[in-house]
């Protein structure tokens, strides 16, 4: 019963925070709701025996990405923001399709059949520790994607420099 209760707590808060994120008038508030949301998601990951993921969820998402957002939000003109309407024209149709999408997704995952369990049982992971198990995989089987990620990050660096550089050279 306890796990269910835990889950219920997390689920409810996650959904609520998500809604707050997308509805908050003030972007700063949105970011802050987001922060809370990420913590809760990280909690959920812990609950699912994914300590490492939970950790990077907090470190990268909450620590890095959200801070970046916050910076940018402050960069922009907030006072103006608070005066105007937060939704675009025609938002009801957006809402409709969002809900409709939710409905069809739920309807189609009702009959979801999960694949049979693999070798990484909870015990195995506990034995090896989660981080190590993940790291081993990353550096062996998933070496190639891991390398790609490095290039992606490089692109991000180069791209940000190109786009956000202040002075024009020529």
């Amino acid at each position, binding site marked *: 019963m306890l796990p269910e209760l835990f889950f219920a707590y997390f689920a409810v808060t996650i959904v609520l925070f998500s809604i707050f994120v997308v509805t908050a008038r003030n972007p700063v508030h949105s970011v802050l709701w987001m922060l809370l949301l990420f913590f809760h998601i990280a909690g959920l990951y812990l609950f699912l025996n994914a300590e490492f993921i939970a950790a990077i969820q907090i470190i990268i998402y909450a620590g890095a990405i959200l801070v970046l957002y916050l910076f940018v939000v402050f960069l922009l003109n907030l006072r103006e923001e608070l005066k105007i309407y937060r939704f675009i024209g025609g938002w009801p149709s957006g809402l409709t399709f969002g809900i409709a999408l939710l409905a069809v997704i739920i309807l189609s995952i009702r*009959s979801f059949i999960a*694949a049979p369990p693999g070798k990484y049982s909870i015990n195995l992971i506990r034995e090896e520790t989660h981080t190590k198990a993940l790291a081993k995989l990353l550096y062996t*089987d998933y070496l190639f994607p891991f390398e790609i990620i490095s290039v*992606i990050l490089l*692109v991000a660096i*180069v*791209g940000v*420099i190109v786009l956000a550089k202040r002075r*024009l050279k*020529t």
Partner: protein
Amino acid sequence: MNLQFPDLTPVMPELFMTALALILLCTELLVKKKGILAALSILGVVVVAYTLIGSSGTTFGGMFVSDGYSTFFKVIFFVNAILSVLISIKYIAIERVNFGEYYSLILISTLGMMIMASAADLIVLYLGLELMALSTYVLAGFIRYDIKSNEAALKYFLLGAFSSAFLLYGISMIYGLTGTTDIKSIALYISEKGLTENPALSLSMILFAVAFGFKIAAVPFHMWAPDAYEGAPTSITAFMSVGPKAAGFAVLGRVFMIAFASIKLEWVAVFIPLSILSMAVGNIVAIAQTNIKRMLAYSSIAHAGYALLGIIAANNEGLASMMSYLMIYAFMNIGAFAVVIMLRSEDFKGDSISDYEGLSRAHPLLAALMLIFMFSLTGIPPTAGFMAKLYVFMSAINAGYTWLVVVAVVFAVISAYFYLRIIMYMYMREPKVEVSLSTSPSLGLALGVTTVAVLAIGVFPLYLVELARAAISGF
């Protein structure tokens, strides 16, 4: 614990490409003349292309596969990269964004495409796609003082991220269903466990279709394309109207033909409306355009619809026709963009259709080339565009979709209206403004290559056809 060093032969081109991009990033700091960077990148791509030879095989535990299929697409990507670089050199100088990163980003984006084409695992696929997409976002916004370029990048980025989220959701779904992300294993699992009726599988398939449909700019996931194409630097428009589209088709072919092989009927039913809508919207809305880049964007949407016919045929011949189509499209489309770029000079935008009025009077050769490209895009022989269409129509009819081909040809007629309008402006109107061309040897080279290719493939398509068939034979 098994720490065997992976076999790097199949992945050699990608490695070289990465190295090339990095070298370019470094040399940018050293050399003043940006032309050298361009030359270097072209040479580098040629070298990379050379490493393609003998690179076949599977590696990284089956995550990466280099086969005929991927090789063919990589050739398209290289063609795309080289031609894009060729048409860029003068152009980015005119636009005053002559930075070395430009070439590196093109190469990295090409790298992303190559990874996509070779991806045998959904994770690799996703990462390749993101690699390609992120660099293209940056490239689209490369003229950062230009609001249009910003806007193009913004829209492309927002919608691109939106669509890749759908892709991820699809991947997660199929992962849950099959417990694997390996494309071949997915196929095996689905057919073994009889998952074909499961709606979750269909959902996942649709989400894939959405994400790939976005990359190939198929209606209704095309909405980004006109704005992004119009706003992006013209050379990048050329680049991204071919490269990401081809890459999208590459993964489309691989994922759907292999992973979703057992629910062919369903995904064909998805792509038929996409194809029809793409042809319809692309061709019809293009009529109403006044900006040539935007017109070509809609044309690109329509061409995605035609190439989709090859996918809809859902057999090897169909894939081969789709591949030939993309190869030909690469030539003719970049050729057309090369002409567009030539009209751009320091103080003249040259991207409005009315700028082409009377072009044949002052610049007969350029007009003649544009004429060839326009007829090729329409699909009138003896240009390559006809052979491209012929091949996809043939495969579609062979697969029993005659009615669909009838629809396609009707839209081809509609397309003639706006392509020929360009020719009409060039040849049948009197010039209103003095157009001075910004010629350069590289641009000339690009035009020469594309023209020769368009005509040669139009008259002798056999090599391309045989190549495509050979490429697909081991699929």
